[in-house]
């Protein structure tokens, strides 16, 4: 049969795709080795510096998990950055008056609320998520500036700062633990649950998923809510780590999150989802950032460099 011939021909393509799909792991190791060699005198390999990389990338990694799910389902959330700020401020304000438990609940509820609205706009009003979340992003950012009149909200509760980012268990930062926990949960949901398959089906072909009895709208709505809550968690982590909540948190994060997720091998066209890939993407960006600092590049130069890296990553990523 001609079929079998074509199949054999396609077999080679499969191998090539496999290599391409796993290129990310080689890249992360490659960069690590290069930096380890060229920056060995500047302490790149020191335990403190390595933990620093994880500390700096924790919030991005955590949010990249939620973003991976949204992207896999074929949606965007451009309001994550401003949600981080709003939730951080609301969390910090609540903490001042009502304590830790209330602060956590308040931040998460705020994030979830944002998700409910974003989801409703996309699922019920049928707006493209790209536009809907640009709009809500502006509104949320305005609120974040407004509630404290641009003032930072200091946080002194030691228990809070310990749990959310400033603390260490032995040599390990609590930020690192948060990262691992969220990534692990995200990975398991994506890879091992029926919900994960529904997300991929929704993003792969919405109509086919609907015809298969999957409630695509509910799946997406849930993902927006989860994204909002993860952004809230990131807001708490920023607050804990920096001992204050500020309206500027998360401002530049969207860029980095998208970069991490795409570098990690996720398609912006939906239907694919690798949480581990997103984590690796985030670590690559963190490592490069760290390396550039150790090399002595200025902040401006770092930003330009990061843009270039994203271009290269996207150019190399599979297009179909």
């Amino acid at each position, binding site marked *: 049969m001609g079929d079998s*011939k*074509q199949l054999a*021909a396609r077999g080679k393509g499969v191998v090539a795709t496999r290599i391409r799909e796993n290129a990310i792991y080689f890249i992360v190791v490659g960069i690590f080795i290069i930096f380890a060699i060229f920056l060995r005198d500047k302490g790149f390999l020191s335990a403190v510096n390595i933990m620093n990389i994880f500390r700096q990338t924790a919030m991005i990694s955590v949010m990249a998990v939620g973003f991976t799910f949204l992207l896999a389902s074929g949606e965007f959330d451009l309001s994550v950055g401003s949600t981080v700020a709003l939730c951080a401020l609301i969390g910090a304000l609540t903490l001042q008056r009502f304590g830790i438990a209330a602060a956590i609940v308040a931040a998460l509820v705020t994030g979830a609320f944002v998700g409910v609205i974003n989801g409703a706009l996309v699922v019920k009003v049928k707006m493209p998520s790209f536009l809907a979340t640009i709009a809500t992003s502006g509104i949320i950012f305005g609120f974040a500036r407004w509630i404290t009149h641009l003032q930072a909200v200091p946080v002194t509760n030691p228990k809070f700062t310990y749990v959310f980012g400033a603390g260490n268990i032995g040599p390990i930062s609590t930020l690192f633990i948060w990262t691992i926990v969220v990534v692990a949960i995200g990975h398991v949901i994506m890879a091992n649950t029926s919900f994960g398959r529904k997300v*991929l*089906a929704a993003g792969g*072909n919405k109509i086919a998923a609907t*015809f298969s*009895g999957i*409630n695509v709208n509910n799946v997406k709505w849930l993902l927006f809510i989860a994204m909002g809550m993860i952004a809230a968690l990131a807001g708490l982590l920023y607050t804990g780590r920096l001992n204050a909540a500020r309206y500027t948190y998360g401002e530049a994060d969207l860029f980095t999150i998208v970069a991490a997720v795409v570098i990690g091998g996720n398609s912006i066209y939906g*239907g694919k989802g690798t949480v581990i890939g997103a984590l690796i993407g985030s670590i690559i960006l963190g490592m490069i950032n760290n390396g550039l600092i150790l090399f002595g590049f200025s902040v401006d130069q770092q930003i330009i460099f990061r843009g270039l890296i994203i271009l290269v990553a996207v150019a190399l990523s599979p297009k179909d």
Partner: protein
Amino acid sequence: MNNNNDTILEMVNINKDFNGVQVLEGINFDLKRGEVHAIIGQNGAGKSVLMKILSGVYTRSSGKIIIDGKEVNYNTPMEARKKGIGMIFQEFSLIPTMTVARNIFLNREPKRGIFIKDGEMIKDSKQTLEDLGVDISPKKILKDLSVSHKQLVEIAKVVSQDRKIIVMDEPTASLAQAEVLILNKVIRKLKEKGISIIYITHHLREIFEICDRVTVLRDGKKILTDNISSTDMSQIIEAMLGKKIKEIIKFQTEKPVKRSGVAMLEIKDLDLGGKEKVSFKLWPGEVLGFAGLMGAGQNKLVKAIFGIHHELPKEMFIKDKKINIKKPEDALKYRVTMVPEDRQAQGLVVDATIKANVIMSILDRIKGALFLNERKANDTAKKYVEDLNIVTTTIFKKVKLLSGGNQQKVVISKNLAADPDIMILNDPNFGVDIGSKQEIMQLIRKFGDSGKSAIFISSEFEELARVCDRVFVMKGGSIVNEFVRDAGPELSEELLVHAAQ
């Protein structure tokens, strides 16, 4: 090879391999001026590769292409077009948001300075369409046209570019019977103008109506080229399949359907906008067909049952229990599944694996407390790959790498996995090779024989006549006729075609 001026195209000793795997072997093909030449073959026989070489999408490994007596060399579709080769694909190359005229003149609009001369464009489009004997307003927005009219616009677009050779890849795949007649008329007009047509189709009957010669490919080799008048259906099928098959296999049940007691499904007063509302009962063990021209209502009808057109007023009963299906999710709960009309757009996640597609509608049924039961998922996928004879090396192969027939079997597997009581099949044999078609028909029959019920729509009435226990004929949104197997006139294609006109 004849080299007189009657021959517009010759493809000589064409070979093509992909990474060393030979997919075309020494193909010789010639096309005469004003000829309609059919290319026939099962999926994977090499038809589309050959046409992609002709149209510059693929480059041949060796061989010559001679157009008008001159050897030509080109490597891109653009260059092929310049040599006068036009392609009409199954997927239309039209922009849905533009008018007919703008589509026909896309990227070569008549201009004055920088401004498009809309009036001239509309006039010329109108002329082209009229020449083809087609009544479509050039000012209409494309997406408002029916599929068949879109197809005719596509043809008009190619014709207006003065192509000498037009390749039509399954032009009738999405057309109903009456519309095929319009297309045939258009093809005759093209012939009169001296345009040569290469006609690829799975519908063998068509080639006897419209084609002058036929070439059959099998496994990358040419098996025969002959005048239509000196060959016949069984000879062509034999060349295609490489073995003799019985000409028409009827898939009939041994157990007659019992049409009394509790019906599997009852539809009452479904308003499809026709003269009369639609009411019928579907019985256990019954394969119920709906015949009709495109737009006669059968499509809307199944979508109403499946919860896509839930807004259409109706009453529904499953096993005498009144129910309401508002969305496909509800349908699945009542064990109603559907094989949709467009398998790629509606039936499959083509970038996902066979396994992922097969288990898509049973995700919640094969999960444990927290996690998906992978073993059950794999076993389910393997079972259907085996049962339905899906040709693949592994259940982890991406569906887009399968042939059309095998893709459709994946869709049907997904349906069967959901263990439906009622399976709706909306033109499941669309663009499927003959072998798979037989298997799909067999599956539908087996499904009915197991005591379940199927609703079967097909644009090929022959299929309905072969497999259904009963066929309703629809016209203008109403049921106008009912034929029951073994009661009254024999259920045949002719009978249904006649009733649907």
